């Protein structure tokens, strides 16, 4: 008998079908991967197993845990299963913990809720569990509050909470998506180790094929609320029987065809750029502590070149992008845009701005929700002394250039999907034909298939308009796909710079090495067999 058996599970929320006919099973001690893009229904599947579907939803079918149908259990009994037989961790460790309770108490609570131990004993066992996930489990360790921990540490606490009672199965819903690559590697290692040591099954939900390849034995691919393909990792990865699986794989390893357009002439030069923030003061008369977010950074971006900037969160790359864009006043260092030199503290004039546009990450926050696309795309015309006569024509052309319909200009941003919005953002950046576009995590929030098309678009535009890109991302594989040169940033400094291929294949700096080491990759033996590609 399987440990957890989904039998034709269907879920509807307010008459909308969310999941249809989900059928798979997980064996004891097995690591099972559930892969899909956002909205594919993989989280709902997990919540259905936990009995935590949102209100207004109705589930049909069966979810058997050791032969017992969880869907048929009344809430009081289902409650006893949660935490005891089924543990679950979520994507966002920053908010998953109660900020006003010590982590010890929160881990111990799992034990107390199920009445397995006294308060003192529970804390003791919570300490053990914390140690098990690699955190100090002594009194001081137990007494820490969530805000004192980093994201990775918090995810460890969540894991300790979920495995406190040694459940038979741990459901991990995108457990590392919110984490940096190096932290991700550690958490994944921990999960794998726990599963092996404790004989616990792991249902790993992720969008990342490479993570599944590294972790799982069997895998199911979800698309639009249904499982399109399942089997051992080898089967699924190598055979790719379903068209969607093939699309997904192609997209996640996609590299746009690029034509080298880089010229020798530098168009944007940054010299000795530094920026420090005041830390929160202990009290108004205290000494002013400064945080050097950007520390003496210099680089040059050549015309038609694509320059990558990678680094983990907090390394200073966002500050650097804001400084380059003139959104924040430069405290020291100069900026040369084309021929114009901007000294420290000198505000960026409109003429300089004309040569420099930007595409941001967040497809939701990138547009004023109350403006129509036409007005949004036309906003950079403000940089010209006068809006051109044919500005409507130009907006239409820009929209068409990024693969949208000219009539889309009369719609509001919320009527578009994430990928389409990123196209609008690109159209907006293009409209006054800048020389440089800063792409600040421009594809990070997108699903892989959409990301691939946007990368293609960016490559095409670069070729057609001779644009220079400053491509800022935390994702090394994306940077590898689209840039000519790359800079690696850490703690405000550029630690390594070079041709992208060279850096990726032969990193010099230990940090770059560690970073590359941590990136999960699909092993060669799991690449599709030639005959599968039709």
């Amino acid at each position: 008998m399987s440990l957890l058996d989904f039998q034709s599970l269907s879920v509807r929320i307010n008459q909308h079908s969310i999941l249809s006919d989900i059928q798979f099973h997980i064996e004891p001690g097995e690591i099972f991967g559930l892969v899909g893009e956002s909205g594919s229904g993989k989280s709902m599947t997990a919540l259905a197993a936990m009995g935590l579907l949102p209100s207004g939803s109705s589930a049909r079918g069966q979810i058997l845990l050791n032969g017992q149908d969880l869907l048929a259990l009344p809430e009081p009994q289902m409650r006893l299963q949660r935490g005891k037989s089924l543990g679950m961790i979520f994507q966002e460790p920053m908010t998953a913990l109660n900020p006003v309770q010590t982590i010890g108490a929160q881990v111990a609570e799992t034990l107390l809720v199920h009445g397995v131990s006294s308060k003192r004993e529970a804390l003791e066992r919570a300490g053990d569990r914390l140690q098990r996930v690699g955190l100090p489990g002594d009194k001081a360790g137990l007494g820490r509050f969530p805000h004192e921990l980093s994201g990775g540490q918090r995810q460890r606490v969540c894991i300790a909470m979920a495995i406190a009672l040694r459940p038979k199965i741990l459901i991990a819903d995108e457990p590392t998506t919110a984490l940096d690559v190096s932290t991700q590697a550690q958490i994944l290692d921990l999960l794998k180790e726990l599963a092996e040591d404790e004989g616990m099954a792991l249902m790993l939900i992720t969008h990342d094929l490479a993570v599944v390849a590294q972790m799982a034995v069997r895998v199911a691919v979800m698309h639009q609320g249904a499982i399109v393909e399942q089997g051992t990792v080898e089967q699924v990865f190598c055979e790719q029987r379903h068209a969607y699986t093939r699309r997904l794989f192609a997209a996640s390893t996609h590299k746009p065809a690029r034509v080298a357009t880089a010229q020798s002439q530098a168009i944007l030069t940054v010299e000795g750029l530094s920026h420090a923030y005041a830390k929160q003061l202990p009290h108004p008369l205290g000494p002013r502590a400064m945080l050097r977010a950007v520390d003496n950074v210099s680089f040059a971006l050549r015309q038609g070149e694509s320059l990558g900037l990678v680094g983990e969160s907090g390394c200073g790359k966002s500050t650097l992008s804001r400084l380059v864009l003139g959104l924040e006043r430069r405290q020291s260092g100069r900026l040369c845009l084309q021929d114009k030199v901007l000294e420290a503290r000198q505000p960026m004039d409109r003429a300089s701005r004309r040569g420099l546009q930007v595409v941001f990450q967040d497809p939701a926050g990138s547009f004023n929700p109350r403006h129509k696309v036409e007005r949004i795309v036309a906003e950079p015309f403000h940089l010209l002394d006068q809006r051109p006569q044919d500005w409507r024509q130009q907006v239409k052309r820009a929209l068409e250039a990024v693969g949208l319909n000219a009539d889309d200009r009369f719609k509001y941003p919320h009527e578009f999907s994430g990928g389409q919005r990123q196209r609008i953002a690109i159209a907006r950046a293009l409209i006054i034909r800048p020389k440089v576009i800063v792409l600040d995590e421009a594809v990070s929030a997108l699903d892989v298939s959409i990301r691939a098309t946007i990368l293609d678009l960016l490559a095409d535009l670069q070729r057609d308009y001779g644009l220079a890109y400053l491509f800022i991302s935390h994702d090394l594989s994306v940077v590898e796909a689209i840039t000519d040169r790359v800079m690696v940033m850490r703690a405000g400094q550029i630690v390594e710079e070079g041709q992208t291929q060279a850096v990726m294949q032969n990193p010099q700096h230990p940090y770059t090495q560690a970073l590359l080491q941590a990136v999960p990759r699909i092993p060669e033996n799991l690449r599709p067999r030639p005959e599968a590609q039709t």
Partner: protein
Amino acid sequence: MLAFLTARLLTMIASLLVASLVIFVMLDLVPGDPASLMLGLNATPEALAALREQLGLDGPWPQRYLAWVTGLVQGDFGLSYTYRVPVSGLIAERLAISLPLALYALALTVLIAFPVGMIAAATRRSWSDVGIMGLTQLGIAMPNFWFAIQLQVLFALVLRWLPAGSFPGWQAGIVPGLTALTLPAIALALPQASILARVMRSSVLETLHQDYMRSARAKGLSAAGALVKHGLRNALIPVLTIIGLQFAFLLAGAIIIENVFYLSGLGNLIFKAISARDLIVVRSCVMVLVFAVIAVNTLVDLAYGLVDPRLRRR
């Protein structure tokens, strides 16, 4: 923590200084001569001049301001123009009524609002929630003096369960004292409780959608258990802010209620002092109230630290 306390104290002193200057300048503008008010319609100019001098109403304002502030610091609030007794004594006498009244009303507010707000949140979108919220809307919508008069007519004049007003003094005993303050406290508390119950409800509802509540459910807690164990304490943070504001309001805002129930509290003192142009009393009373607000805000800030460990570190 010590640094944090010093910092708070310094900010507080600075605010008080600015506030004192504002109060002084504002009151210096008030037209109306206390001397002529005291001597009435038939007073001669000489008599007026003599009294003005007696009262120390002459002299340039910076000098009078300095004298006042230095007095304040030393606990000397000056002499009331009209009563000719120390202002500090007057204020202390009135605080003996106003402070217990404010605390009584605040206690009622909290005692009503907490359970009511929790019940409404726990049963959201049910009839009990709609009913409770409707009642709180009514509580907020009523002019409080009107409500107070209705209470007075019903409970004191018709039913005769409670005194219609007046305060016998604490020397008469705790029970008669509290009995006398009951109607005013209810009149003050119900609208405030309505506000607080609504804040409580929305604050609890807000926490219901936090990720950590889902984590708690995943551990095996019931929805109610998660609400009590994890939601409540987090929900308290905005509630505390409101409670702080309400205390300040109850202390100063009882003027009208004191009028209805003929209590001689601080509000009554200020009101009469304004009519009598007893500016030294007005000034010091306003200062005391501002001090109370700022002090309560500081206390609330410190209380955040108790509730929320994230704020403790500073």
